[in-house]
């Protein structure tokens, strides 16, 4: 009994240690720019850019194959940062700035099918089969993936309400001065 436990534990430790050492020696150094760009992206793997996740998107950005304005959740701020990082010129005025929003479940229509659970890249939905779902606003990245999958169309995007922490003075309206 004790030998069995001991030898298996030892075997596990030895194999784990060897794999650990091997992973150190066989580490593949990726392009440092790709890693830096990937850290700037939201990392929720929502796929709105058309790439499978933030990793492939970062690779395409570093190779110059993708536009810096590709990330809708990142918005204009991220596009500006990326343009600076990759030193490319970009016209940000054409980029639509979305209001910060979260998904909202209309509880009168929700049938508890849990389909939105599988879609959500950040696991912001809580609930159970045949129970009404709801969204944890702090986790939702407003990627809008859940909207199309809902069979009763009960999910809508709602603008975030300003709290004491997020409220700011409205920006002054642009005025054209008569020359």
């Amino acid at each position, binding site marked *: 009994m004790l*030998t*069995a436990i001991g*030898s*298996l534990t030892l*075997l596990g430790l030895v194999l784990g240690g060897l*794999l650990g050492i*091997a992973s150190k020696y*066989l580490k*593949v150094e990726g392009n440092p720019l790709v890693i830096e760009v990937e850290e700037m992206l939201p990392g929720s793997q929502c796929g709105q850019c058309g790439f499978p996740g933030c990793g492939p998107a970062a690779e395409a950005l570093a190779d110059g194959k993708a536009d810096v304005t590709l990330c809708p959740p990142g918005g204009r701020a991220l596009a500006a940062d990326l343009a600076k990082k990759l030193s490319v010129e970009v016209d940000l005025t054409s980029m639509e700035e979305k209001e910060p929003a979260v998904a909202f479940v209309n509880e009168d229509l929700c049938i508890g099918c849990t389909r939105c659970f599988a879609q959500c890249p950040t696991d912001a939905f809580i609930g159970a089969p045949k129970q009404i779902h709801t969204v944890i606003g702090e986790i939702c990245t407003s990627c809008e993936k859940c909207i199309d999958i809902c069979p009763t169309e009960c999910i809508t995007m709602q603008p975030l309400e300003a709290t004491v922490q997020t409220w700011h003075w409205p920006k002054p309206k642009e005025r054209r001065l008569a020359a």
Partner: protein
Amino acid sequence: MQEYLLIILGTALVNNVVLVKFLGLCPFMGVSNKVDTAIGMGLATTFVLTLSAASSWLLERFLLEPFGIEFLRILTFILVIAAVVQFTEMAVKKISPVLYQVLGIFLPLITTNCAVLGVALLNIQEKNTFVESLLYGVGSALGFTLVMIIFAGLRERLSFADVPESFAGAPIGFVVAGLLSLAFMGFSGLSVQ
């Protein structure tokens, strides 16, 4: 020397893991749509099968037998196979990123290939020596690769054939696999083992 050749020939053709022993059928049906991926899968499996056959023999001889804990054989072998596969994945990623891209998800899936565990267990059952176990692994892996490539080639041809609707896809694949298995039974006339 001749007996070693006979082991390789015997395991690759006469006692083919896939078509005679019916082990490792999941990659045989799953990854055989294209010849390229079949070759990649065959090569990766060859590496893992050989290494795990050798290392599981060593474990049996120097750990399980001396302590009399043979009842832990399957558990130990699965542990070793998983570690070998993990190591293979890291090594392939380092040495040949292109091959790593081509193989993709198939590499980690070798862990669950029952041919790998089956060969390790058969080695113990047949009381092979270390070199014999190693050759048993190599032979089985060669047989696996050969069958994968043959079957993938057949399926590539088959995709152009006018198959009746109720047989199209997997059913005709199984029919072909059965016919291929019948054809491999012809090798038993070689009686090398």
